[in-house]
């Protein structure tokens, strides 16, 4: 009898990389920062993360079961969403907060639009925006100082995160007449100390959201993702460089070019956002060139929010807003081989 051959369009061999492998690699790359959070903030950081992850996975499972769709929890994307959401919450947040966040991220932002690949914005960031709008106190109050450090990373003010201290101190210094001499002195002292606190920011000995504080541990994971070609350099580099340049020019109290770019790059969620959230494949543009524009856009919005907006931090909103610009950026057609433009 004739053998029955499988017939299909070329190519007949495929690369071994796959969506689940990519997602698992992202989870792996996020783990060092979780270890850091455990060390600096204690076991509570782990509970928040676990609750967020489990809720995300269960929500995805239930919705797909309910809608009679193939269950995709094995692609690990819900795990990534849960982790990223938790990383954007303070360690002492009540546990119902990550539950609401994960349900919203998966049910509304991801599944309502058709699942992985169709969500218009990053589910974790959209959930954070919802939580920030609905329960602002719960998600912006930081009470746990890191082990062996202070919330602000400096000694003179110990009750707020570095970006908060920076924002408030600059406000004082820009309107010296409106404040008491004591306040002014304290503010300028704080700025000086912040400038000297790069080490704390780099290693993660400052307060903040669970996964955002240690630039070092995040960069470790990011290096792995770059090496595995899961993220490109285009978005993180253009994003961070834009923030650095703009905060250097406009971020100081002594006129132009008196800002502190190193501080602004290391503080807050910029490293986490630039390497792990702005680079989200689904919601970032396709071509390298569009990715550079995307990164620049994120950088501009982040800086505007940090320097003149109402919030001390602008990473999440900047990425969310640029997510919405992505379809537009995807209409930039690159020059084809042999095409003269």
């Amino acid at each position, binding site marked *: 009898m004739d053998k029955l051959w499988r017939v299909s*369009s070329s*190519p*007949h061999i495929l*690369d071994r990389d796959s969506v689940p492998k990519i997602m698992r690699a992202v989870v792996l790359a996020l783990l060092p920062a979780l270890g850091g959070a455990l060390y600096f903030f204690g076991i509570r950081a782990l509970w928040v993360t676990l609750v967020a992850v489990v809720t995300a996975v269960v929500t995805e499972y239930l919705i797909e079961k309910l809608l009679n769709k193939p269950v995709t929890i094995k692609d690990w994307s819900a795990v990534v969403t849960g982790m990223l959401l938790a990383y954007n919450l303070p360690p002492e947040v009540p546990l119902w907060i990550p539950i609401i966040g994960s349900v919203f991220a998966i049910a509304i932002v991801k599944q309502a639009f*058709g699942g992985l*690949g*169709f969500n218009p914005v990053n589910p974790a960031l959209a959930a954070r925006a919802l939580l920030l709008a609905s329960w602002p106190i719960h998600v912006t109050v930081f009470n746990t100082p890191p082990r062996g450090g202070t919330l602000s990373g400096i000694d003179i003010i110990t009750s707020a995160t570095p970006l908060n201290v920076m924002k408030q101190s600059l406000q004082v210094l820009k309107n010296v007449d409106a404040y008491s001499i004591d306040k002014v002195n304290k503010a300028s002292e704080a700025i000086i100390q912040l400038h000297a606190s790069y080490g704390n920011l780099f290693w993660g000995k400052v307060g903040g959201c669970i996964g955002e504080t240690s630039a070092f541990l995040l960069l470790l994971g990011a290096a792995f993702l770059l090496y595995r070609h899961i993220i490109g350099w285009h978005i993180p580099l253009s994003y961070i460089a834009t923030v650095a340049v703009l905060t250097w020019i406009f971020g100081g109290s002594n006129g132009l070019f008196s800002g502190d770019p190193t501080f602004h790059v290391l503080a807050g969620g910029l490293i986490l956002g630039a390497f792990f959230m702005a680079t989200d494949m689904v919601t970032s543009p396709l071509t390298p060139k569009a990715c550079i524009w995307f990164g620049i856009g994120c950088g501009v919005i982040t800086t505007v929010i940090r320097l003149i907006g109402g919030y001390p931090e602008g990473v999440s909103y900047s990425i969310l807003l640029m997510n919405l610009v992505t379809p537009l950026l995807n209409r930039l*057609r690159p020059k084809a081989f042999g095409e003269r433009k």
Partner: protein
Amino acid sequence: MLGIRRRTFAGGVYPPEEKSHTEKKPIEEMPPPTTVVIPLQQHIGAPSEPIVKQGDQVRIGDRLSEPQGFVSVPVHASVSGTVQKIAPLPHPLGDQMLAIVIENDGQDTVTDAIKPDENYLALTPDEMRQKIKEAGIAGMGGATFPTHVKLSPPESKPIDILILNGAECEPYLTADHRLMLEYSQDIFNGLKIFQKILNVKKTYIAIEKNKPDAIRKMEEIAQGDKEVEVIGLKVKYPQGAEKQLIKAITGREVPTGGLPMDVGCLVQNVGTAKAVFDALRWGKPLYQRVITVSGPGIQKPKNLLVRIGTPFKDVIAFCGGYTETANKLVMGGPMMGLSQYTDEVPVIKGTSGIVVLDGKTSPTVEPSPCIGCGRCILTCPMGLVPTTIAQYVEAKNYEMAKKWNALDCIECGACTFVCPAKRPLLQSIRLGKYKIQTLNKKAG
């Protein structure tokens, strides 16, 4: 030469090379089969018309058909014997096509039309082209464009660079590699014929760096010839694609929709060079070729010299048969080759190899939605956005697919190879190209 020349192109992928199964195995001559199936069309262009009929006696090298027009070549008998029938039969390029079936009498009688010519270099370019056409030669890298047509550029497009393509970037295939090792002088002589026909001096022999012995061998042969330079290219797929090869070596970019001659280049496969030499020096028409038979579905992978028209099943039987896990039969390499539904199809002039895969190397996959990773864009050697074109095609928006340069796709398959969501991007783009072209025809 001034300036830094790049030794590769932008994009591309790195599939497992899988050449070790056959690269050290010398070319073996396969005994002629009991019957050969010779399709009347084995080239791009008009099919040739048969000039023999059922019951005719033919000898090796006898012309069996008459080419129809300029872009057409004849086919020749590859065994001696009797014409059994002329009928539509399965063709490796798909569907059925008229083919001449010859029953081998086992005598291997050669036609007296085959006459060696020591002074072949004294022929005029036009005489050379005529002989190449009569020998039925079509590009042997796989595209099978009639060689005499390629060697007739219009006067408005002068050629100043000739490239001999020995890149062989498809996984598993080693036929060109072995040819370069075992027939280097013939290939070089073929190159000299090309130079004469085109009146071109500067010539490059391009070989991927995973064939250092072939590079050395061709360098030895070309030694002392200042016009010929052997170039080692980065090992990357599709390095052997015409436009990418030209870009890597000369830095010139063939304009979109254009041909290599638009930038003064002409590319010929090393196998074609040997066939051209054989035709002019020995008077031999193209009735046999070297192929690689390999893959996890083959018991004993080999490089073989086979008669054109030998059914795949005979070739595979000669290589020890299939393994138990064999489940996909491909003519050509695994990246661009065509999967077959039957092994009754014959080896044709464009068959560079037969690769048999199994469920492990060529798994059945379930595509999932695009996650926008952009890998297809980074790998596309033509600078296209495969995922966007495929999406337009899936939405039947052929107008937009065309605007996004779907027609520039060279169908190398790099995008589909690299897609983590396992989307059949090339299949969609191919459909789009077909639709655009048929719509164009209707409109025109």
